């Protein structure tokens, strides 16, 4: 095939949409997904097809249509292939998890569609076993088709809270409570906001109805202030909007404070391929927008490699509409998390290496400005296995709030951008059988 190869990273709606649009234009596309199946967070398919979680019918139909087109297309799909980064000469590194090796590709263009990462604002005890993210729990449920066992508390803010709670309820284990930090959900302006996004309104209504049938009403303005281990379970301290403290004993806590673009892996080197980001990985606007954004990313690639692009304003219009809807939705929720001033020094900030808020505070207690490099090398924040993906944003905003310095470090400076962007087994590097290198 004479056309240059385009590599699409991420098998969610944005990636699949980009791959399909490129294939329609006759481009040689390879779609890489790190997991065993395509679908991404939103269309995640179960390990056992008979054990599926109930999802809105529109979601199911949309994914079916895309899967059908993909099967009939020229797109080459590589599941269990993880994007490991781009090295200095511009080669894209992929960890082939089927054969346990690192492989390199030199595509003309790279579409990064690696979705969003979940934001969880730190509270004391959030690092304990049994504390998970709402999205993480949803992934587990969608993969196994079963609700998690035991008493589960869902807390934080965002539409995902009631979605997970409803899915758990329909699988037979409703959460013991849903704590939604925001108090804005029932204001008058909410109705106007929701009317601008009718699809979300219907989806939310469905979830709330399911929950109501299980006797669960999300508690507005309530949040978790501390989690501690007790008798093999988790003792959770909560505050409600009237300032009343409460203790609950549960088996799991699922936390969620919004979504952020998965920005890891952006290293546009001078020799590298043309890079374009698509979907939540570029801007968190959800699945519908991701489809349109995937097409737009494909158009950007086509323009770059000199292929004619069919003129259509449809994806851009969808994106604009979804951006408006998300903006309206975002006004309903409260992603601020616990006020750092209320957090004790022992609160873990970096879960990978157990670095605490006290250690961060003491770094900031001197007179000198603190650089991102010092936060990493001296503070060890962002140096663990996640390379700062889960703490960099919080650390950066905390530093900015504490220091009036001219240029506080940016989260992007704290998040690792070197390859490998995610941990890669030594065995995958060492693709040759174990022979002595000097023999």
């Amino acid at each position: 095939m004479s056309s240059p190869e385009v590599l699409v990273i991420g098998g969610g709606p944005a990636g699949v949409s980009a791959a399909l649009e490129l294939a329609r234009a006759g481009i040689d596309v390879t779609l890489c997904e790190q997991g065993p199946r395509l679908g991404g967070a939103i269309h995640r398919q179960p390990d056992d097809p008979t054990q599926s979680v109930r999802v809105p019918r529109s979601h199911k139909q949309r994914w079916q249509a895309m899967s059908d087109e993909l099967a009939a297309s020229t797109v080459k799909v590589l599941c269990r292939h993880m994007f490991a980064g781009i090295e200095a000469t511009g080669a894209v590194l992929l960890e082939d998890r089927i054969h346990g090796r690192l492989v390199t590709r030199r595509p003309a263009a790279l579409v990064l569609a690696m979705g969003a990462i979940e934001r969880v604002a730190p509270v004391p005890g959030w690092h304990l076993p049994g504390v998970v993210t709402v999205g993480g729990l949803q992934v587990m449920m969608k993969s196994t088709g079963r609700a998690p066992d035991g008493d589960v508390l869902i807390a934080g803010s965002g539409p995902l809270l009631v979605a997970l709670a409803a899915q758990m309820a329909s699988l037979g284990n409703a959460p013991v409570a849903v704590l939604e930090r925001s108090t804005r959900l029932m204001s008058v302006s909410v109705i106007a906001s929701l009317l601008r996004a009718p699809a979300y309104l219907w989806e939310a209504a469905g979830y709330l109805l399911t929950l109501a049938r299980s006797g669960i009403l999300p508690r507005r303005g309530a949040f978790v202030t501390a989690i501690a281990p007790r008798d093999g379970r988790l003792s959770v301290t909560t505050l409600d909007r009237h300032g009343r403290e409460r203790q609950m004993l549960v088996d799991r806590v699922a936390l969620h404070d919004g979504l952020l673009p998965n920005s890891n892996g952006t290293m546009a080197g001078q020799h590298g391929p043309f890079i374009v980001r698509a979907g939540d990985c570029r801007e968190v606007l959800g699945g519908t927008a991701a489809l349109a954004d995937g097409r737009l990313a494909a158009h950007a690639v086509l323009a770059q490699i000199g292929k004619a692009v069919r003129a259509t304003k449809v994806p851009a219009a969808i994106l604009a509409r979804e951006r408006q809807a998300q903006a309206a939705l975002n006004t309903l929720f409260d992603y601020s998390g616990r006020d750092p001033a209320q957090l004790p020094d022992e609160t873990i900030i970096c879960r990978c290496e157990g670095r605490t808020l006290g250690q961060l505070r003491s770094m900031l207690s001197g007179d000198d400005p603190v650089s991102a490099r010092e936060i990493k090398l001296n503070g060890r924040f962002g140096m663990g296995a996640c390379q700062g993906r889960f703490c960099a944003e919080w650390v950066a905003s905390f530093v900015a709030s504490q220091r009036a310095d001219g240029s506080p470090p940016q989260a992007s400076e704290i998040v690792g951008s070197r390859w490998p962007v995610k941990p890669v087994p030594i065995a995958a590097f060492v693709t040759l059988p174990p022979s002595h290198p000097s023999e």
Partner: protein
Amino acid sequence: MSPFDYDIVIVGGGIMGCGAALRLAEGGMKPLVIEKDDLGQGASGVNAGTLSLQIKRVKLMQYALRGHHEWEAMGAAVGFHKTGGYTLAFNAREAELLHDRMELKRQAGAPITFVSRDELARREPELSTNVVAASYCAQDGYANSSLTGQYYRRRLADAGIEYQEKSPVDRIEALGPGYAIHCGGRKVTAPRVLLAAGGWLRQAAAMLGLDLPVRARVNTVSVTEPGPRLTPSVIGHATGLLTLKQKANGTMLIGGGWQGTGAPEDGRGVVSPETLLTNLQLASFAVPALRNWRIVRSWTGFEANVPDFYPLAGKAPGLDGVFILGCVRGGYTIGPYISKLMGDFILGRTLELPLFDPGRIFNLE
């Protein structure tokens, strides 16, 4: 009263520059340390932290032994651990190389012994069964290089030594006597200048019209996720192309001087997959269980070298009041000591060991 702002301006705030500043202040001088980034964040802060006499050159052994004592004295503040270290050979040729090299180092003063295969297997069960010969040095260990910057910052502050970070030097101007250092709009004067800019030494010297034959090596280091304890010791290879140690937090730090790409003038270097692969191959050959461990991060640091691989430490050729300190092979180990020597030299004291004339003739190939 002196017409100068300082007695000496030191360009470069790594181990060399800070170490010399401390010695000079002790001797009554008023130094200023100027660092283009943050203190101790160049090679001083990103190297693998190995303190091994088994990988030191014979001619530098006396310096390395004294360097070891300096590190031991700095102790926990720099994450010092004396663990003992093994150097491994996997075939007859390597065993011969190991024997020849270690015998010379032993004669030079390093307390190195040879260990039988069986004894090694007993002491270090996770090491490869392919080892045919091994040497051991009880002095060997490591420190945590990422603590270098904060350690020296505290030491400078305690000694009342001024330092200026995030301040690349723009220009060095020769005055009648003395020098004016221009740096971010500020001008400071001193009768003496010490260039201790590590990988950036060539550029620093060029500001004074000196052309030093300094080249930067781009050394690669990698770290794994934490895992179960595999070895308490620092592990090396007969060729010198491997360093491996498990830190207290369970992570494994893997180095050995494998070369990445990039140059100091372009900012940071980059890891090359081909050399990293060989580095990791050697590491997992030495400790087979490492194959299943995951690499979290690989990075590079610039190490300056001259053609004969001996230090530049002494008076700059043809320039009054200009001193040079750098290019010390094993600079992390030797740095705290040779920087003291450099201080003594500038203070006009008698030296415990000789320095290395930067004006010597290099055989340039």
